[in-house]
C-alpha cells in the first residue's frame, strides 16, 4: 500500500476543490440568469406568470436539494438524455439557485416603495422602462449583500453532488478516505477547505450589509 502524506491528501483535495468552485460558479451564474428571468416574469402584470413562478419557488424551497439532484440525474435519463453526473448536478443546482435568487430578489424589489412605481408610471414610462431605470437600480443596492450571502449556500450545496457521483471536494474526500483509512484527517481537511472558500464570502456579505445600512441612515 502506498503511504499518503498529509500533503498528498491536501493536494488531492485541493485539486478536487476546483470542481467545487467550477460547479458553484456554473450554478450561481446560470441560476442568476434564470432567476432574473423568473423575477421579471413574476413582476409582470400577468397573474398566470406570477403564480407559476411562485409555484416553482415553493417547489424548490420545499424539497431537499438532494432529492432534486436525484430527480435531475434519473429524470434526464428517463427522457433518453445521456447524463453525466456533471450535467445533472449543474442542472439541478442551477434550478435550485434560480428559485432562491428569484425569491431573494423579489423581496428586494418588493421593498422599493410603491410610490416609485407610481411616479415612474405617471411619467409615462413603459413597464420595461420603469423596471430598468427606476426599480431595479434601487433593488440592486439592497440585493447585493443577500445575493453574495447566498453564494455560500450554493457552494455548500455543491457538496451534495457527491451523492450522485460527481467528483468534487466531498466525493474526493470519500475516495481518499477509502484509500488512506484516515477519515478524521481527511474530513477535517475537507471541512477546512470549504470553510476557506465560504468564510471570506460570508464576511464580504456582512460587510456589504453594514455599508448598506450605514448608507440608509
Amino acid at each position: 500500500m502506498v503511504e499518503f502524506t498529509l500533503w498528498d491528501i491536501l493536494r488531492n483535495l485541493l485539486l478536487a476543490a476546483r470542481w467545487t468552485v467550477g460547479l458553484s460558479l456554473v450554478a450561481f451564474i446560470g441560476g442568476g440568469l434564470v432567476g432574473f428571468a423568473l423575477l421579471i416574469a413574476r413582476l409582470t402584470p400577468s397573474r398566470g406568470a406570477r403564480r407559476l413562478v411562485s409555484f416553482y419557488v415553493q417547489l424548490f424551497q420545499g424539497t431537499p436539494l438532494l432529492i432534486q439532484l436525484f430527480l435531475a440525474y434519473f429524470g434526464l435519463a428517463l427522457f433518453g438524455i445521456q447524463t453525466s453526473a456533471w450535467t445533472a448536478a449543474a442542472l439541478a443546482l442551477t434550478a435550485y439557485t434560480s428559485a432562491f435568487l428569484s425569491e431573494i430578489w423579489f423581496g428586494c424589489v418588493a421593498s422599493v416603495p410603491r410610490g416609485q412605481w407610481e411616479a415612474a408610471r405617471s411619467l409615462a414610462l413603459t413597464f420595461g422602462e420603469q423596471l430598468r431605470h427606476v426599480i431595479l437600480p434601487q433593488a440592486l443596492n439592497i440585493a447585493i449583500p443577500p445575493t453574495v450571502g447566498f453564494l455560500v449556500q450554493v457552494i455548500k450545496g455543491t457538496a451534495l453532488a457527491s451523492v450522485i457521483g460527481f467528483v468534487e471536494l466531498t466525493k474526493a474526500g470519500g475516495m481518499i478516505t477509502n484509500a488512506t483509512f484516515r477519515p478524521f484527517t481527511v474530513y477535517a481537511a475537507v471541512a477546512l477547505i470549504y470553510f476557506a472558500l465560504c468564510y471570506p464570502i460570508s464576511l464580504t456579505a456582512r460587510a456589504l450589509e453594514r455599508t448598506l445600512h450605514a448608507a440608509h441612515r
Partner: protein
Amino acid sequence: MIRTVVNLDFGTILVDWRMLAKGVAWTLGLTAVSATGGLALGVGCAWARIHGPAWLKAVTGAYVELFRNTPFIVQLFFIFFGLPAAGFRLSPEAASILAMVINLGAYATEIIRAGIEATPRGQVEAALSLALSRMQIFFHVVLPPALRKIWPALVSQIIIVMLGSSVCGQISTEELSFAANLIQSRNFRAFEAFIVAALIYLALSIGLRRLLNWLGPRFLFGD
C-alpha cells in the same frame, strides 16, 4: 431501453407505503429532536455570545462560523466516519441527530442573537430597576419578545434542517430519502420513487411550517 414519460408507474412505489411511512416517521422524529436540541443550543450560545466571558464569546463565535460555512453533509461524515477514528463511535441515528443539532444550533445562535440585540435597551433597564437577576431578565424579559420577532426565521431554518436530514440516508439512517432509495433499488423506478419522496417532503415542509407557526405563540413565547 428508453422509457418515456408515459410509462411512469407510481403504483409500484406506493405499494411500499409502509417503508415510506417509516421514513416519514424517522424524518419527523429526527427533526423534532434536533429542533428542540438545536433551539436550546442556540439560546445557550446566543446568551454566551452576548453575556459570556471573552473566551466563551470567542469559542461560540468560532463554532457558529465553522458550522455555517461548511456543508452539512461534511459535518455529518466527519461525525460518523471521522470521530470513530478518534475513539468516538456513534450509531447512524445518533450521528444524524448530533449533526442536525449542532448544525441548527449554529444558525439558531445567530438568529436569536440578532433578535436579542434588537430588543430595546429600555426594557432591560426597567427590569433591572425591578431587581430581577441577569438570568431572570434574560429568560423573562429579553428572550420572549426576541423569540416572537425571529420565530419566522427560526421556523424557516428548522424546515431547512428537516430537508437537510435527507442527507442522513447516506449513512443509512432510515429516513424518507433512504426509504425512497431502497424502494428504487428494488424496482428500478428511481424517478417515480424520488418524485413521490419530493411530494412528501413538500407536504411535510408546508405542514411543519403551519404547525410551528401555530406552536410558537402558544408554547414558546406565550401570547
